[in-house]
């Protein structure tokens, strides 16, 4: 059995260098892809991310990126997503590169926000299988893409410093888990419905990001956006998000820190923060640690509750066969029930029968790209 596992590992490792992107007609058409599968198991009767208390195997996903360049300045991009629940178009846009300092884009575009807003599906670009839930999860802060138009570009000085910018306008959809709804006074409707991820559209958004990268691999980012959020048929509120991010690489050490706040003005505020460190012992073995937290304040909820809170610490051990194929294992300890709760719970049930306040999560998975 052990020999079989070793043989499989060696086969994968030796096969990967051949798994290259397809470039047809000298780059006119390029095809890339990424995929992931994991086993995720949580404890204490709570589900979290894709994890369930009995263990979830059904997590496979695959994404296909197609880029067509009919001329040097024009690119059509599409990113198709395949997972157990659906097949979808994650983004699709056309880009006109006027110069390195000005590139115009229109369509459905990855949201340029924070360190990883554009890389939510690319597992080989990070040390943990999943990004920090407190910022990139259903935390009412970051979308996966926006619909509209934008401009981007970069200015590089001879000294090696680079200033990059993004500016965009349009609409986006946010994901939110309102586990705390039954705490609101007066009580909102549908408290007997199972708690699921809500998606709400923020319209008329204006957003941007500034990234300053030093010659010694330190990047600082300032990003944010604002727009109008329709709460129901009559109510519209102003929605604002802003945050600071930093990334640093020194030899085998990688550091990543982010802090974001969101504000549904007059209704709800949230703060999400995450700090990740990863150390590579060599080209293959990597140890990672992450601390993150998310807190929600709602205008018509008084007092604190575990349903408004998420704290998480995680340790991970990764084996990189190549930069494009990695096996990741991680153990997470979660406090609070904003994102960790029984899978079939209703909002009312989470208040009348509080779930366990502590959850342990185990993830073992593989991620690849080509």
């Amino acid at each position: 059995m052990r020999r079989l596992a070793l043989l499989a590992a060696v086969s994968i490792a030796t096969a990967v260098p051949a798994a290259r992107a397809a470039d047809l007609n000298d780059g006119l058409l390029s095809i890339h892809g990424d995929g992931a599968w994991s086993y995720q198991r949580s404890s204490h009767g709570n589900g979290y991310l894709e994890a369930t208390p009995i263990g979830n195997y059904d997590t496979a996903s695959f994404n296909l990126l197609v880029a067509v360049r009919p001329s040097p300045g024009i690119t059509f991009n599409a990113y198709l997503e395949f997972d157990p629940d659906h097949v979808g178009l994650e983004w699709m846009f056309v880009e006109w590169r006027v110069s390195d300092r000005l590139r115009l884009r229109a369509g459905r575009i990855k949201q340029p926000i924070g360190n990883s807003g554009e890389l939510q599906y690319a597992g080989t670009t990070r040390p943990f299988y999943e990004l920090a839930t407190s910022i990139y999860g259903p935390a009412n802060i970051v979308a996966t893409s926006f619909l509209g138009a934008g401009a981007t570009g970069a200015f590089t000085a001879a000294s090696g410093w680079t200033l990059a910018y993004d500016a965009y306008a349009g609409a986006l959809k946010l994901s939110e888990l309102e586990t705390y709804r039954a705490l609101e006074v007066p009580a909102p409707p549908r408290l007997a419905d199972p708690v699921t991820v809500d998606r709400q559209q923020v319209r008329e958004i204006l957003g941007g990001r500034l990234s300053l990268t030093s010659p010694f691999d330190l990047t600082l980012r300032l990003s944010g956006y604002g727009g109008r959020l329709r709460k129901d048929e009559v109510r519209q509120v102003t929605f604002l998000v802003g945050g600071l991010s930093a990334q640093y690489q020194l030899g085998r050490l990688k550091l990543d820190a982010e802090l974001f706040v969101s504000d549904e003005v007059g209704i709800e505020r949230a703060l999400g923060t995450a700090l990740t460190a990863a150390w590579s012992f060599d080209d293959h073995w990597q140890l990672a640690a992450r601390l993150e937290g998310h807190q929600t304040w709602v205008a018509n909820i008084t007092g604190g509750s575990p349903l408004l809170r998420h704290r998480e610490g995680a340790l991970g051990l990764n084996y990189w066969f190549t930069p494009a194929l990695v096996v990741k294992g991680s153990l997470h300890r979660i406090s609070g029930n904003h994102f960790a709760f029984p899978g079939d719970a209703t909002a009312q049930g989470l208040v009348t029968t509080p779930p366990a306040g502590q959850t342990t999560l185990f993830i073992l998975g593989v991620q690849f790209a080509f």
Partner: protein
Amino acid sequence: MTRPLPRLAALAALAALAALATGPARGAEPTFLVVAHPAVAVAELPRAQLSRLFLKKDTQWPDGSTVRPVEPLDPGVREAFARQVHQRSAAAITAYWNALIFAGRELPPLEKASDADVLAYVRATPGAIGYVSAGADTAGARIVAVGRTP
């Protein structure tokens, strides 16, 4: 009275560490040649600028034409080019491209199976720049020297 010897040993250890940190001797022969389309009016490029061209941070030649970088698949030549021009490992460059590809930002340079394929593309494509192993027959392409300035 026994202090000088440990100090000497410490200096020797520091020197050894410094030697390890600086990598191969600076005078070592390059294992690759940088080649460009004959119409590219450049005889020498500073290392940092060459790196920016292959990382697609600069995508236009001074005359405004498009830079079209191309790379061979040979892992040995790629590693040498990555170490000497990008001053990073080839694995780090792959990780750099993974982040840009999946953000929808940029695609890596075109890849060709052999030196001959790289040279054929470079000779035929205005604005092309590539690199090949040092022993390749570069007739018909412009050799671009890598400047010693950073």
